[in-house]
C-alpha cells in the first residue's frame, strides 16, 4: 500500500511556500496608494495568503497522521479511505484556488472561497476520522497524542459545520449572535488544528528522546485536557468588545487565565530544556522543535496579557493581534511542521557544508521572525495609541505615520520568505530522493 502521507506533506510544503509568497505580495499593498484589482489586488492576495498558510498547516497535520497511522494496519478498507480522503482534499484545494483566482468569493474571513468548496473539506474530514479510528482502534491504551489527534479531528468537524451556519438566514439576521459564532469557530478551529500539530510535536519528542512513558503519564493528560478546555471555552477573548452576553466574556477571561499553568510549567522545566537543547543541537528535527518551544513561551506570554479584557481593549484590532497570529502560525506551527518533515525525510544534513548552511539559515529564520513580529507590534502600538484617543489624527494620517514600521515589516517579511522558503524547497526536493518511503519508527 502506497503511503499517501508523503503526498500530503509535499502539497503542504507547496502551500506553505505559496503562503509566504502571497504574504510577501500582500504586504506591498501597505505601501501603494492606488487600488489594484484582480488577483494582484489586496482583496484576493490576503485570502490567498491566509488560506495557503492555513491549509498548508492542516495538510501537513493530516500528512503526518497518515504517515504514522498508515503502518498500524493494512486492509482494503483502510486503503480505500486513504485514497478517498486524498481525492476529496485535492478537489477541495483545486476548487478553493480556482475560486480565489477567478474572484468567486462569498465566504467569511479566512474562508472566503465560494462555500460550495467547504463540502469536500467537510466530507474529507469525516472520511479521515473513520480512517483514523479504523487504523488505530480502541484495543490498546492510547498515548496522549492519539487523544490529541482525535480531539483535533472531532472538533474540526464540529466547528467546521458551525462555520457555515451563516448560510441559514436566522443567524445572518442576528448580527451579534452571528459574529459570536464566527469567532467561536475561529478560536476553536485553530485550537483543533493545534491539537493535531502539537500532538505531532509530542510524538516526535517521544521518538527522539525514546521516552515512551511520558505519553502515558497523568500529568501529560492533565496538560492535554487543559488545552482542550481552552479550545472549547477561551475563544471569547476575541470578542470582548462585541456586545454579546457578558457571561461569554467572563468564561473566556477565566478560562484563558488557566494558561498561566502552562507558562509556569515551561519555566519549571527550563533548566532541563537547556540541557536537552545542547545534547541534540545538530539534530535538525529537534532544533526546530526547540525553536517552537521558545516561540510558545513568547506567544503564550503575549496571549495571556492580551486575554485580560482591560489590556485587550487597547490591543484589540491592532497589529499586535496579527503579531500573535503570525507568531503562532510561523513560530510554532510551521517550526513543528519543518521539524516533522526533517524527521521523516532527512533528520540531519549529511553534507558538512549543508549542515553549516542549514544552521546559519535556521538562525536567520529565527532572528528575522523576531524582528518581523517586533515591527508588527510597533505598528500595533501606533494604532493602539490612536485608538485610545491619545492623538486626534485621521485614520489615513495615522496609517501614513506608520510608514517606517511598514517598511521594516516588508523588509523582514521578505528575508523571512527567502530563508524559510530555502528550508521548504530543500525539503520538497529531498522528499523525492527516496524511492521507498521509510522513516525511523
Amino acid at each position, binding site marked *: 500500500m502506497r503511503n499517501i502521507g508523503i503526498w500530503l506533506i509535499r502539497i503542504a510544503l507547496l502551500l506553505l511556500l505559496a503562503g509566504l509568497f502571497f504574504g510577501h505580495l500582500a504586504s506591498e499593498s501597505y505601501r501603494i496608494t492606488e487600488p489594484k484589482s484582480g488577483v494582484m489586488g*489586496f*482583496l484576493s492576495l490576503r485570502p490567498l495568503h491566509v488560506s495557503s498558510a492555513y491549509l498548508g498547516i492542516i495538510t501537513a497535520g493530516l500528512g503526518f497522521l497518515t504517515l504514522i497511522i498508515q503502518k498500524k494496519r493494512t486492509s482494503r478498507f483502510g486503503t480505500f479511505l486513504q485514497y478517498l480522503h486524498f481525492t476529496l482534499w485535492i478537489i477541495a484545494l483545486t476548487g478553493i484556488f480556482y475560486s480565489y483566482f477567478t474572484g468567486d468569493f462569498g465566504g467569511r*474571513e479566512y474562508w472566503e472561497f465560494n462555500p460550495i468548496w467547504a463540502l469536500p473539506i467537510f466530507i474529507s474530514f469525516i472520511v479521515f476520522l473513520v480512517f483514523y479510528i479504523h487504523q488505530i482502534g480502541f484495543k490498546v491504551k492510547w498515548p496522549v497524542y492519539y487523544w490529541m489527534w482525535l480531539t483535533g479531528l472531532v472538533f474540526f468537524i464540529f466547528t467546521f459545520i458551525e462555520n457555515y451556519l451563516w448560510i441559514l438566514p436566522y443567524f445572518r*439576521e*442576528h448580527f451579534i449572535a452571528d459574529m459570536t*459564532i464566527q469567532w467561536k469557530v475561529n478560536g476553536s478551529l485553530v485550537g483543533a488544528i493545534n491539537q493535531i500539530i502539537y500532538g505531532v510535536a509530542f510524538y516526535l519528542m517521544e521518538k527522539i528522546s525514546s521516552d515512551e512513558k511520558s505519553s502515558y503519564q497523568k500529568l501529560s493528560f492533565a496538560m492535554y485536557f487543559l488545552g482542550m*478546555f481552552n479550545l*472549547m471555552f477561551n475563544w471569547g477573548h476575541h470578542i470582548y468588545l462585541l456586545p454579546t452576553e457578558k457571561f461569554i466574556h467572563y468564561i473566556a477571561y477565566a478560562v484563558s487565565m488557566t494558561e498561566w499553568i502552562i507558562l509556569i510549567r515551561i519555566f519549571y522545566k527550563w533548566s532541563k530544556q537547556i540541557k536537552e537543547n545542547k545534547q541534540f543541537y545538530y539534530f535538525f528535527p529537534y532544533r526546530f522543535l526547540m525553536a517552537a518551544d521558545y516561540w510558545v513561551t513568547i506567544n503564550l506570554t503575549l496571549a495571556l496579557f492580551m486575554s*485580560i479584557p482591560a489590556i485587550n481593549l487597547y490591543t484589540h484590532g491592532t497589529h499586535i493581534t496579527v503579531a500573535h497570529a503570525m507568531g503562532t502560525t510561523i513560530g510554532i506551527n510551521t517550526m513543528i511542521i519543518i521539524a516533522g518533515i526533517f524527521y521523516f525525510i532527512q533528520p540531519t544534513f549529511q553534507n558538512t557544508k549543508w549542515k553549516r548552511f542549514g544552521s546559519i539559515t535556521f538562525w536567520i529564520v529565527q532572528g528575522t521572525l523576531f524582528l518581523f513580529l517586533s515591527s508588527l507590534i510597533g505598528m500595533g502600538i501606533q494604532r493602539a495609541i490612536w485608538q485610545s484617543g491619545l492623538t486626534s489624527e485621521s485614520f489615513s494620517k495615522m496609517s501614513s505615520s506608520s510608514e517606517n514600521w511598514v517598511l521594516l515589516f516588508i523588509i523582514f517579511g521578505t528575508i523571512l520568505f527567502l530563508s524559510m522558503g530555502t528550508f521548504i524547497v530543500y525539503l520538497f526536493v529531498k522528499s523525492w530522493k527516496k524511492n521507498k518511503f521509510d522513516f525511523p519508527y
Partner: protein
Amino acid sequence: MLNLFSHPKRIFLVLFVCFIAFSVWIYAIPLFSPSPYSEKELHLVAEGKLVWQKHNCHTCHQLYGLGGYLGPDLTNVYSRSGNNEHYIRGIVKSGVKQMPAFEISEEEMNALLQFLKNVDQSGTSNPQDYQPEILGTFSLEKK
C-alpha cells in the same frame, strides 16, 4: 487529583457534552432577546451580510475590531457624520486610496446599508467609550 486523568474517555465525553450545551445556548440567544426590527428589515440585514462577504469587505475593514487592517473600522460608520448614506454610497462606488471602486447594484447597496445601520445600532467599537476596571475587565461608560 491527577488520578482523575486516568480515565481520558470519560473526561473527553463530559467536556464534549459541556461544549455542545454551551454551543446550543449561544445559537439560541437571539430567541430570548426580541428584535426591534421588522421581518422585512431583518431580511435586508441578512442579505446585506451576504453583500459584505461577497465583496470581501472584511479583508480591509473591521467590525468591532475584527477583520482586516488596511482600512478603518466600520462598526459605527453609519452614524459617524450626518447624511452618511450618501457618503457610504459614494465611497463604495468610486473607491478611495487603495480601495477599488465596486460595481454594486442598487439592491445590493440598499442591503449593505441596512446591514451597516444594524451593526451601528448594536453598540460602539470605540475603546474610548469604555472604562477599564480593577479586576481586569471593562464596562461601557459613554463619555
